[in-house]
């Protein structure tokens, strides 16, 4: 094998580390799955790579998604961190937005700051909203602060000054002074991550970056060391929450941009799959053991959000950076079904998780889960789970289902199991609606790409619920995030709040902001690029009608700014507002809130090998058995053929009822639905109208 012909992607998740290796010469893709080793993530990863019999020495690109940052946040295992902030505002991080979403819960809890109050230090400086200095920053005060932080043994420092989105001078000076005086600390300032207004959200963002900073930096340098040891001399790139890539030096400054790398990569995988298949729009549906997630590709572009709450809406910490817009619900294979007050059937939000897991895993689980329900319906094979590595306990699952659900509700075991799956499916359908219907999009005009271990098992049912006509199950749905990494591009995102009425827009000021963003983006892309790349620049603005608060992000062709075409900008905004909220107004004034610019360094996509064409449409050669499967209201209990996905060829057609079995997943095709295998090996399913 020639040096530099491999592209290796490793997605380190909570349970498994998925590795995908693409050979750019042969077009072959190899996959590996190993258990994640929390103590040494890097080692687990290189073990996963060696399992695919690939060598880092042959790789040109190494693409990496990791949970190291999000775990440090969620498990509260970050650095000893201090906040340096504007006088009068050290408590803003603790006060937050004062809301109480669980309005009737007297035992509600607020978010918990990552930085204790004793380490939130004020300095006497102040800008106003126009960026004018009201009180100058005093270096000697900073020196005293540095001394205090050194005495406290602080490892990381976050800096947030009011209105730094408008004028970052004070933050820059404070950062430079503190870096100089605290050479071993991780120092980060809010404007480096977000130049959007909202001081609580920006504080929370920079605090999270500082909190995970030392740990992420250490992780990345360990990765560098390991990669060097194994002879890797290509480019090491990390996946951001936008699904775009950045290099290790950028990642070790802007650590929180990698928070949601795995889920984001899945959506990018969906985007590229759509491109290969000639689809302009799709819903990305990802279901695992504990959650189901949905994202959207619209006209070839993934939808993004400008803020996310890490740890949920009620108690979470906001992070104000662009991310792929992903909605999530705590419904997964492990979700527990229970009977509330003797009469109501509920699914979740409790999950059996990985331990004890569903009853059928035989690890001490006693409460029936969605996975148990699927097993009892015959949709999961007790002896084929994880390629037969794990035998499932049908009897135990049946007993638990009977005692805990079916008997109390006066249902049969099959009715109870079918009911649980149907309830789980509507919960997941609601999460898909949150990214489509709630954004003014009609789910019925989308195809759905389903992946994750449990995605293919439920995808068709979710699609039926939403009248989605077409479902695509990609190759290796359990490794889809790793695939997404392999087809991603380098990306840098910039945003700056600049309040201005559209009619009075200071275009010259906009030009210079955009130019600055673009030249910074281009040089950063160049630094990270594995060779020369085509670079694309995307412009967007956050806009609203005068008087509204919530702005929508509107992508605008760069030319509209160059030609000062106020009418075109307004029209683009009206269209987005009408689509999202059902109305727009030509004659109402609009206002610009923030300017956005993304610079994308396009990396050539791998060209996967095509599947051999089948000699006939009939897929009998892949048939491995027949068993009774309960389809409930979709047709009752039917003898259902089971096909081995590895044996399916391009052009094979299968009509439901059928199950398609593969290593870590199973696709359920109910009666009435039809499937064709395309030349790339995707299962392309048409849902009965």
């Amino acid at each position: 094998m020639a040096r530099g012909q491999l592209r290796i992607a490793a997605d380190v998740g909570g349970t498994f580390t998925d590795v995908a290796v693409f050979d750019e010469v042969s077009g072959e893709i190899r996959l590996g799955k190993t258990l994640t080793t929390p103590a040494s993530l890097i080692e687990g990863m290189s073990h996963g790579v060696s399992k695919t019999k690939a060598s880092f020495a042959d790789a040109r690109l190494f693409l990496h998604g990791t949970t190291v940052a999000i775990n440090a946040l969620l498990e509260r295992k970050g650095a000893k961190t201090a906040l340096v902030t504007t006088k009068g505002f050290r408590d803003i991080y603790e006060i937050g937005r004062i809301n109480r979403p669980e309005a009737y819960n007297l035992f509600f809890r607020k978010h918990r700051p990552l930085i204790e109050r004793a380490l939130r230090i004020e300095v006497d400086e102040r800008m106003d909203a126009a960026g004018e200095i009201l009180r100058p920053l005093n270096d000697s005060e900073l020196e005293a602060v540095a001394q205090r932080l050194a005495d406290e043994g602080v490892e990381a420092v976050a800096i947030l000054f009011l209105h730094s989105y408008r004028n970052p001078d004070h933050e820059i000076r404070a950062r430079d002074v503190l870096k100089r005086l605290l050479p071993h600390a991780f120092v980060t300032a809010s404007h480096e991550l977000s130049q959007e207004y909202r001081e609580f959200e920006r504080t929370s963002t920079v605090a999270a970056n500082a909190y995970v900073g030392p740990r992420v930096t250490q992780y990345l340098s360990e990765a560098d060391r390991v990669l060097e040891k194994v002879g890797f001399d290509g480019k090491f790139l990390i996946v951001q929450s936008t699904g775009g890539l950045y290099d290790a030096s950028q990642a070790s400054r802007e650590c929180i941009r990698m928070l949601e790398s795995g889920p984001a990569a899945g959506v990018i995988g969906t985007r590229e799959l759509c491109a290969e298949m000639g689809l302009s729009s799709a819903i990305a549906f990802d279901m695992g053991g504990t959650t189901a997630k949905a994202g959207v590709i619209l006209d070839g572009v993934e939808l993004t959000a400008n803020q996310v709450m890490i740890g949920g809406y009620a108690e979470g910490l906001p992070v104000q950076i662009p991310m792929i817009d992903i909605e999530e619900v705590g419904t997964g294979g492990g979700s527990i079904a229970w009977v509330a007050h003797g009469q109501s059937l509920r699914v979740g939000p409790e999950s059996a998780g990985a331990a004890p897991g569903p009853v059928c895993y035989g690890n001490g689980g006693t409460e029936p889960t969605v996975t148990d329900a699927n097993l009892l319906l015959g949709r999961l094979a007790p002896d084929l789970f994880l390629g037969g590595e794990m035998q499932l306990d049908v009897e135990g699952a049946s007993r638990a289902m009977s005692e805990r659900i079916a008997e109390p509700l006066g249902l049969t075991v099959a009715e109870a199991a079918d009911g649980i799956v149907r309830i789980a499916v509507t919960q997941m359908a609601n999460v898909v609606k949150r990214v489509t219907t709630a954004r003014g999009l009609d789910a019925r005009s989308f195809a759905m790409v389903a992946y994750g271990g449990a995605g293919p098992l439920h995808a068709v049912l979710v699609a039926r619920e939403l009248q989605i006509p077409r479902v695509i199950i990609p190759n290796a749905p359990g490794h889809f995030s790793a695939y997404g990494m392999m087809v991603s591009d380098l990306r840098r995102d910039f945003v700056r709040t600049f309040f201005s009425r559209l009619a009075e827009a200071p275009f010259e000021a906009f030009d210079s902001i955009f130019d600055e963003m673009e030249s910074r983006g281009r040089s950063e892309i160049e630094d990270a690029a594995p060779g020369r790349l085509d670079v694309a620049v995307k412009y967007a603005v956050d806009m609203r009608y005068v008087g509204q608060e919530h702005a929508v992000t509107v992508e605008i062709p760069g030319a509209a700014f160059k030609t000062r075409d106020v009418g075109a900008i307004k029209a683009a905004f009206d269209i987005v507002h009408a689509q999202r909220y059902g109305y727009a107004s030509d004659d109402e004034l609009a206002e610009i809130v923030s300017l956005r610019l993304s610079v994308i360094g396009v990396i050539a996509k791998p060209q996967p090998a095509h599947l051999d064409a089948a000699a006939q449409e009939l897929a009998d050669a892949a048939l491995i058995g027949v068993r009774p499967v309960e389809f409930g209201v979709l047709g009752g209990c039917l003898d259902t053929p089971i096909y081995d996905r590895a044996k399916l060829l391009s052009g094979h057609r299968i009509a439901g009822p059928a199950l398609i079995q593969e290593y870590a997943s199973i696709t359920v095709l109910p009666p009435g639905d039809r499937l064709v295998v395309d030349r790339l090996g995707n299962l392309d399913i048409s849902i009965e109208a």
Partner: protein
Amino acid sequence: MTTNRQTPDPVTTEIIRNGFIAATEEMKTNLMRTAYNMIIYEALDFTVGLFDRHGNTVSIGLGLPMFIRGMSETIKAKLRHFGVDGIQPGDVLLTNDAYITGSHLNHMTFSVPIFDGRHLVGFSACMAHWQDIGGTLDGMTTDIYSEGLQVPIVKAWRAGVPNEDILSVIRMNVRLPERAMGDLKAQVAAVRTGEKRFLELIGKYGRPAVEGAIEAIFDHAEAVSRESVSQIPDGFYEAESFMDDDGVDSGRRIPIRVKVSVAGDRMTIDLTDVSVQVKGFYNSGETAGLSAAQVAFKCLTAGLELPVNDGAFRNLEIILPSGRVVSAERPAPMRWWMTYPMTIVDTIFKALAPAVPTRVIAAHHADLVIASINGRQPHDNKLYLYLGGLIGGGWGAKHGEDGMNATVAINDGDTHNGPSEQVEAKYPLIVERYTLRENSGGAGKFRGGLGTEQVVRARHDIMFNAQIERVDCRPWGLFGGLSALGNEVRLERGGIEERFPTGKVLSQKIEPGDAYTVCSGGGGGFGNPLDRKLDDLSNDVRQGYVSAEAAREFYGAVFDAAGRIDRDATASRRADMRRRGLPKDQPFATEDHSSWGGCPYCTRLLQPHPEAQAMAGEAAAAGISRWRCC
């Protein structure tokens, strides 16, 4: 599979229940994203809901708890007004009659009937706070007529056609007609969304299944409530608390007395002895009194059970004769309707504390701590209205847990404060400080949450109005926990600080360079402060939640030379304090002589209360008072 069971089955019911919750969440998001005034989009001062064809609540979006009855009672009134036959598809019914909605005139309440073909199957509704509804801009009101436009029950749309007469009456009577019409559009869009989702459920599962599921949702909520109440020991429980005053008779306390009885799985909340209606604008309609009782009941029985629906209250009886401060009669003024009901809720918790000590919570700051500001923009001289304050305050401690800091009062739920960076970009104001208020949480084994303090300096002339309560009558503790600091308002004009014995500081002109301060109270403590774990206390002191001085005075702490708590010395000091009956509670600011309690009086009183002034003078002369600010 057998299908010979009666409909609806538990699976379909659960699917429809999820559908209703998702629909009301979507309505909420929709309105929040499209509204034109920050009271809706930021404070989330609105609620949306879906109702059965009789107007009973099926699901309310989690907005403001105290709107729990408003929409349902309004729909029922609309049904009475038009009759079932007087309502057509495409109608949009509107009113802001405060005596029906149980709030103030700012709450425009829209509902649309939902028809499945010719059958009326339910209603979709939304009540939301308009920034202005006319009426006097500053000061106190003493009847409803000075509070703005009253819209009786009308059809804003008749069978799909806008009623331009009504809309133009509204436009002419409000100060910011464009904003108002924007909010109107957003509200109608939200109720239309609810209508659409309701009909989708019917389209998918059929009318009988949906109606059956609604009954099942009610029945389930009822079962949960009955089971919960049956765990409360039977008995008669009562409690009393006070409001500072009604804003007209300054300093005259207003009694809030509640009686609760529990028998088996039923509860009765009797508000007969709550004060009669008052002269100032703190009254509210009967709907608000019912809401207060239901909110307290819901919190104590099944706070996390969704959707919030009327089945949950079938075992609750509420006794509320008319003419009380929460069942006031026309023309009582109602602009600040939301304040008293919050203290009623806390008082119900207080009454039931001996019965269910693990479910209740000590009192909270019980006020939105709002500052109503108006002024003119320096660049174009246009009027602006700014809802200042809304800073969140302390919540009561409870069994096993400290109270929450800086959280919005119980009238509101998912209400947000506004970012200071946004305030300063929009208005000629500088937010100088927004911090936690040290020592404001009531001392206790479990400490009450901390209140906050916000200082805002004007860069231009503004008019300032605070309508804040519970300045004197502080949030109480439970089971030996102490009272917290109350709410407070201060002004700084011409470099001189002014403090007030009351939170009703109305029609005050503030000039460039002057500042106002609003402080929210803390939450009451739970359990004897001398039982607080020393690790917790030591952390309180490290973080500055409790000063070393307060740790000594209220928690019996003794510090060594290095500033660490001396465990042995503390134990003996605590024993000594117990013998002497310390620490003493200070439930009223006017009787508080502690050195850290702030100064409730001074010579620069706006409406000096003679009694209070005399007391302050005496205390100062006797050398008791160390708390003078003046």
